[in-house]
């Protein structure tokens, strides 16, 4: 597996505008803030991991940036323009549990949904859309599963169907909510390869991730989140024991995970 951190790493500079700028983003439920004053400048073409303990607001960050849940304050810019105007350039991969997999559709039909917005209102699905969806399915290694009803796919395959649906949107920026959660080894491998393909095509991926051990290998930019941004920066500068301790605080079991992951990283 190639090491994402080592080859050309993305750094923000004054000359290249950020792919995603999040300013003062705050989300509160009944006066209780879930995330607050999030300021992030995320560089174009980076593979960005959003990491933090349970309840740190990782999913909330994604959802509020995409306007799926109301923000209390703040704004989100995509390539320097307001998110609403750039929405078509952003693809979202929700958590797998967010839908009913008994729904009467097959894998190809789900992936085709990624092309609906481009089609626009009332227009029926065209052959070109289906072709694009088929390509996206092939890209995640599920070409042979196109006509399978989605409840008959394994968890990892379902996750890949969601990724393929985002691919079919042909976006520039991908928001993925825990795509690695409870998937099998071959799916994990397929997702990693996909992330690399996307990066070499100049796409930006913002991925909620929970496995500290693989964070430095899979990503090259790290956002440490615990209700507020603890640290955001290139992986090798940000993935330090000190920063992880600040993020995970006294949660001991997680801390030991973090430290062992850190020492692994230091060794390699």
């Amino acid at each position, binding site marked *: 597996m190639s090491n994402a951190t080592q080859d050309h790493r993305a750094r923000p500079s004054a000359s290249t505008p950020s792919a995603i700028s999040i300013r003062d983003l705050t989300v509160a439920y009944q006066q209780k803030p879930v995330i607050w004053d999030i300021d992030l400048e995320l560089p174009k073409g980076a593979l960005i991991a959003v990491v933090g303990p349970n309840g740190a607001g990782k999913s909330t960050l994604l959802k509020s940036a995409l306007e799926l849940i109301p923000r209390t304050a703040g704004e989100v810019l995509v390539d320097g323009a307001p998110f609403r105007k750039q929405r*078509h350039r952003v693809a979202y991969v*929700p958590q797998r549990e967010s839908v009913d997999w008994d729904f*009467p559709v097959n894998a190809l039909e789900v992936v085709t949904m990624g092309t609906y917005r481009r089609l626009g209102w009332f*227009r029926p699905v065209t052959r070109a859309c289906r072709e694009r969806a088929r390509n996206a399915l092939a890209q995640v290694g599920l070409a042979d599963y196109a006509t399978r*009803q989605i409840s008959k796919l394994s*968890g*990892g395959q379902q996750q890949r169907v969601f990724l393929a649906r985002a691919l079919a949107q042909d976006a520039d920026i991908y928001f993925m909510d825990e795509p690695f959660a409870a*998937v099998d080894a071959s799916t994990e491998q397929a997702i990693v390869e996909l992330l690399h393909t996307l990066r070499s095509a100049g796409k930006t991926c913002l991925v909620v991730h929970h496995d500290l051990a693989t964070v430095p290998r899979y990503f090259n930019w790290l956002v440490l989140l615990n209700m507020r941004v603890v640290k955001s920066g290139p992986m090798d500068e940000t993935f330090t024991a000190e920063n992880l301790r600040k993020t995970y605080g006294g949660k001991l079991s997680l801390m030991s995970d973090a430290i062992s992951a850190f020492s692994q990283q230091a060794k390699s």
Partner: protein
Amino acid sequence: MESSEAIWRTVLLLDYNTRLVVLATALLGLASGLIGTFLLLRKRSLMGDTLAHATLPGLSLAFLLFVTFGGSGKSLPVLLLGALAGGGLGALGVLWIRKYTRLKDDAAMGIVLSVFFSAGVVLLSMIQKIPGASAAGLESFLYGSVASMVLTDLYVLMGAAIFATALALLCHKEFRLLCFDEHFALSQGWPVRRLDAALLGIVTLITVAGLQAVGLILMIAFLIIPAAAARFWTDRLDLLLLISALLGAVSGWLGAGLSAVLPKAPAGAVIILCATACFILSLLVGRQSGLIWRVYRQTQLKRQTTHQHLLRAIFEMTESRPESAVTQGALAARRSWTRRELCRGIRRACKRGFIEATASEEWKLTPLGIVEAIRLTRNHRLWEHYLLEYADIAPAHVDHNADTIEHVLDPGLVRRLEARIGKLYPKGHGMTPDLPPSPHQIAQSSERSSS
């Protein structure tokens, strides 16, 4: 018999007087089957019921107002407008409760449904006391009555049904997305709330249109039952819509035909009973998940499992000496199968040419059987290795009854498993170089058979 002939004449559209009623109700069934599918998939069935019940106070108030201003009170457009307003208010009430209280959806709908319906019932009893105002027509809105429908009613009904069908087909793609994954729809920029409102709007339209024929109490059943029945036939949405619309149309057709002949039975109940008949039929014989097919598949599965166990057992007992035979006693001791299961399995395997008798109660694999047994054993052992390898995530994927492991796992993963096994046990091991050894100790057949 005269009445059965009358029923046939009505159902077959030979009777001029009822022809239009039957057609209009079938059209209503088509529309409600179609839109009901989306309602069911959006998990808003109770919302549809709430809407239907909330039409009653609207109807009654419209009647009262019309009578107050000197009308006869039985103008259909006025009544339906009242019903529409009632249903709309009910839906808004649900949304309001959900937004401003901590009550959940089901509680909100339960409250609105019962409050609106009781208000309607009270208003209805007041109407019946008004001298001169005939409220007989209003009662038919509760349980439905096709006999009381006049020509303009039918035109209104057909127009609404056609309009709703056209809208549902037009927004077919949008509704599919809304029902499957609203968050994704939202992220793509679809106006999810307006789509939801459109869906409920069409449901309201159909409900109000069906008030006269089916009645407001049973209208929800006419929306939901065809869709639920269609689910037994397919797991493709396009087909589901088609079948649901068809079942709705058939139940409307039969129900209206029957109740035209039996004017004393409330039409709504007759129509819903027809829909229920369709449902029970689908439940039994539905091709996708009907009871009979499920039982059939289960039996097949059991048979197949016994078959696989049998061939594998014989093969593993004789793996080092493939030409040797095993006794039935040794086979019986090997697994916890009943004598009957074993005998049946042996009989079937004999018939298919996989095993042959060498002596009384003694069996061996035929050359064909050896090939099949190797295939089965390979699958089985790959699964076992897979389970050992990926113990943390594997159970969700294991499908012992998949014909081959490749049908469930990715080819890449199977190759990796094979490679790992190949490394552990180089080629040339045993009689079958491509057969991975079992990861656990296989009981020695010689010990068992000699005991």
